[in-house]
């Protein structure tokens, strides 16, 4: 019996203590005609660890072997060996939510350090212990902005079209049931940026917040100072959606414009979390001190024990569902503990210079890749705005066709913008510090062949 320790003697002794004849007797409160006996026939027989491992190794191998230039919200980075060796130690891996603080000081201190690291990366005052991912984090930020913006009566938020479309769709799915509307701000077709001109029609209108993505989905860097000041001048809060790697090089949201952003969210995956088909990742969420009571999710505070010794504990729990029930700030019960632990270890290992160097190599490699690819006839940069580590290229053929042909050569050449933006010949490509010069050349050679 995998993972069940009881011998027949144990079972007999336990039944005797209960005063039952059989295990089946323990289910005598369930109406007999509801019992599932014989209904699980579609399930296969159990396998040993060796057999399941062999099966899953074969499946995993089917998906391996390509060189990928796909980004679009999830990025390949070198992950130091120590990160997951420590994060998957049983003491972290198999611990529960730190409700019993005295027996959870390890997890609690890690979260406190994580909160500190995230506020330092984003130049914000406070952070929570993380939410599910960047996209659902934005949904939480939108709901939070409605609570935090006391001057606004609006249930509307301005969202740029240049935001990752997966963030927009997830946010819609989560907030629309509460009668919250997202209004789209178009981007400049030439620059690939969100311009103040596009916001002008909304001047003087009541919106709870403006979302600003840095970089945006196209990899373009937005003029964040002007956008932030415009939002504040119009009574809106600013929700920043940022890439954490970029934070080492790019102005952090706490320093945008005159007052800085009010709420910051983003996908934490680039900080030491593997691509792993989309999860588990973690969303980080920071804000100004004055909004902390409107923030959803778990928050850890430093305090003292009854002997005056430093300790860490869950705090501001009056915001949360297990206390407030229907009046909670969110229904969220978890954070992405393991992924967040990995990010804390990763960020500590990289340090300020290491993370800056990673960001710089991502940027430089993407520039180099764009140069190599645009040297091919008919391949051009779609936009003129400066970029961080992603760029949109237009091709002389439909993107879907080209990407499929590249995939046959085991080159995953980015993401098509056909479906989300109607740009049928455009692809979004990314390179990071993991790509060698040889990888970039491989892509260029393959693309040239496919387009020939």
């Amino acid at each position, binding site marked *: 019996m995998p993972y069940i320790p009881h011998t027949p003697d144990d079972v007999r002794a336990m039944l005797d203590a209960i005063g039952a004849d059989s295990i089946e007797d323990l289910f005598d409160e369930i109406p007999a005609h509801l019992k599932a006996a014989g209904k699980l026939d579609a399930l296969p*027989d159990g396998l040993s660890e060796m057999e399941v491992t062999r099966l899953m190794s074969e499946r995993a191998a089917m998906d391996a072997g390509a060189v990928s230039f796909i980004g679009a919200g999830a990025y390949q980075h070198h992950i130091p060996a120590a990160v997951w060796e420590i994060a998957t130690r049983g003491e972290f891996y198999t611990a529960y939510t730190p409700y019993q603080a005295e027996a959870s000081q390890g997890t609690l201190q890690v979260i406190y350090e994580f*909160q500190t690291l995230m506020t330092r*990366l984003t130049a914000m005052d406070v*952070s929570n212990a993380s939410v599910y991912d960047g996209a659902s984090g934005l949904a939480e930020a939108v709901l939070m902005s409605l609570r935090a913006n006391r001057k606004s009566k609006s249930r509307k938020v301005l969202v740029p079209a240049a935001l990752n479309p997966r963030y927009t769709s997830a946010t819609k799915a989560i907030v629309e049931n*509460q009668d919250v509307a997202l209004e789209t701000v178009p981007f400049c077709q030439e620059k690939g940026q969100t311009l103040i001109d596009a916001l002008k029609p909304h001047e003087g209108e009541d919106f709870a917040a403006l979302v600003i993505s840095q970089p945006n989905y196209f990899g373009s860097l937005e003029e964040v100072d002007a956008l932030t000041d415009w939002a504040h001048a119009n009574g809106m809060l600013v929700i920043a959606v940022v890439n954490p790697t970029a934070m080492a090089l790019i102005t952090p949201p706490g320093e945008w414009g005159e007052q800085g952003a009010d709420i910051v969210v983003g996908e934490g995956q680039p900080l030491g979390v593997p691509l792993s088909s989309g999860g588990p990742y973690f969303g980080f969420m920071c804000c100004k001190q004055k909004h902390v009571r409107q923030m959803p999710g778990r928050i850890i505070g430093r305090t003292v024990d009854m002997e005056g010794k430093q300790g860490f504990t869950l705090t501001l729990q009056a915001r949360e569902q297990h206390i407030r029930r229907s009046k909670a700030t969110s229904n969220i019960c978890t954070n992405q503990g393991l992924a967040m632990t990995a990010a804390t270890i990763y960020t500590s290992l990289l340090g300020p210079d290491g993370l800056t160097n990673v960001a710089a190599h991502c940027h430089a490699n993407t520039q180099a890749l764009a140069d190599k690819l645009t040297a091919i006839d008919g391949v051009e940069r779609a936009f003129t705005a400066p970029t961080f580590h992603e760029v949109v290229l237009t091709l002389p053929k439909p993107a879907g066709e080209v990407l499929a042909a590249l995939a046959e050569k085991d080159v995953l050449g980015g993401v098509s913008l056909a479906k989300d933006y109607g740009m049928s010949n455009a692809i979004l490509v990314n390179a990071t510090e993991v790509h060698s010069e040889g990888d970039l050349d491989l892509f260029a050679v393959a693309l040239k062949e496919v387009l020939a």
Partner: protein
Amino acid sequence: MSETQLIFQLSHPGRSATSQAPKALSDDKLSAIPAHLRRKQKPGLPEVSEMQVVRHYTNLSSKNFAIDKQFYPLGSCTMKYNPRGANRAAMLPGFLNRHPLAPESHSQGFLSCMFELQNFLKEVTGMKGVSLAPMAGAQGEFAGVAMIRAYHDARGDEGRTEILIPEAAHGTNPATAVMCGYKVREVPVGKDGDVDLEALKAACGPQTAGLMMTNPSTCGVFERQIEAISKAVHEAGGLLYYDGANLNAILGKVRPGDMGFDVIHMNLHKTFATPHGGGGPGAGPVGVSERLLPYLPTPMAGQRDDGSYHWIDTDTLDTSIGHLSAFMGNAGVLLRAYFYARSLGREGMIRVGEFSTLAANYLLKRLEAVGCTAAYPDRRASHEFILTFAKEAKELGVTAMDIAKRLLDYNQHAPTTYFPLLVPECFLIEPTETESKEALDAFVDAMAAILEEARTEPDRVKEAPFTQPVRRLDDVKAARELDLTWTD
């Protein structure tokens, strides 16, 4: 144990783990980034060596209780053994390095696992369709109630504004209903732990969108009137939502689909042995009956006639409630659950419900024998049960919280305390099927010793714990003098 410094206190300007990052680039490589968008000051991250990092976080880990170290009888949390093999399988390079937007041609291995997992979950729950997209139980709940709303909306049935929830329910249920735009009406629970059926019937009406319930309930007993409840809600035009928090109790024994539920969520971090990770990540797949199939959240895995696998997304399922995350949820957790499902197989699934129920009933009887008071002494325990220490609190001034803290000194993790809210001074205890009889006996011995201490030297209990890295913490100070980040 000594106070651990913060990683920031170990920082020394100029120190770094140099093998972990590429070398610095000359500034001309960054000339494409306009100066006014460049960060002016380096972020204040710690400057430490690789070994300092490894030692610091390894030392911190030792300050945690964990299933790998201790018995963890947390009610409704299902802290069962997390197979190491599942972790290794999910961390295979082919899975770990697969980008979520990789083309189907490079995703057949992953998709096949997800497609099979969907089918396994359908079979064990008796539902007609499953989506793996929700990233945690709370998100599964959200998806479930959002589907209920989508169903009523699609029928133009707009007067349904209320979700019914038994008062014993977990706090997420009402919080979720509100997130989906519903009002909450709580339904009382009777003295025997079953829902007050007459009160429920009276609460049902044209305003009822649905009922959310857990079965076995958070009272640790099987809801015997489930069919009558199902009938009452359905006759009023509402749908029935199953909170899968306690699915472990009935896995392989009775299926939510057969009980009349229209929509369920499962907590794979409970029932399917994926790790809790100090508070996440979880996975909260949803299953639905026939009439809610069009609304399942995307993406899902599908199979073509030629046997190949593909994604099902909103472009082909435009009635879906949509995406709940940027990609497809907590894929790595789903792979661990897939490993567990393959490892257990049909017979193993049936054993889960059987042996978790055996363990709970045994533990309850033994605890009663050493002087503990059951909240529902006339009922069978499910996979969990409630003790109440109202008598000890009144007569000895020793509360459930005190006993919980003292258990830590006996190297036993505390059960769930003060939940459900309707039983005073309570423990909700769930031993799971993976604990040996000796481990259960050791917990009984600890409880017997603590009850004795409560009578003879109550301060040992009231001031506990004594053996942990810290004593009881000042939560009031933590909330009043907020200190949420470290200042150098």
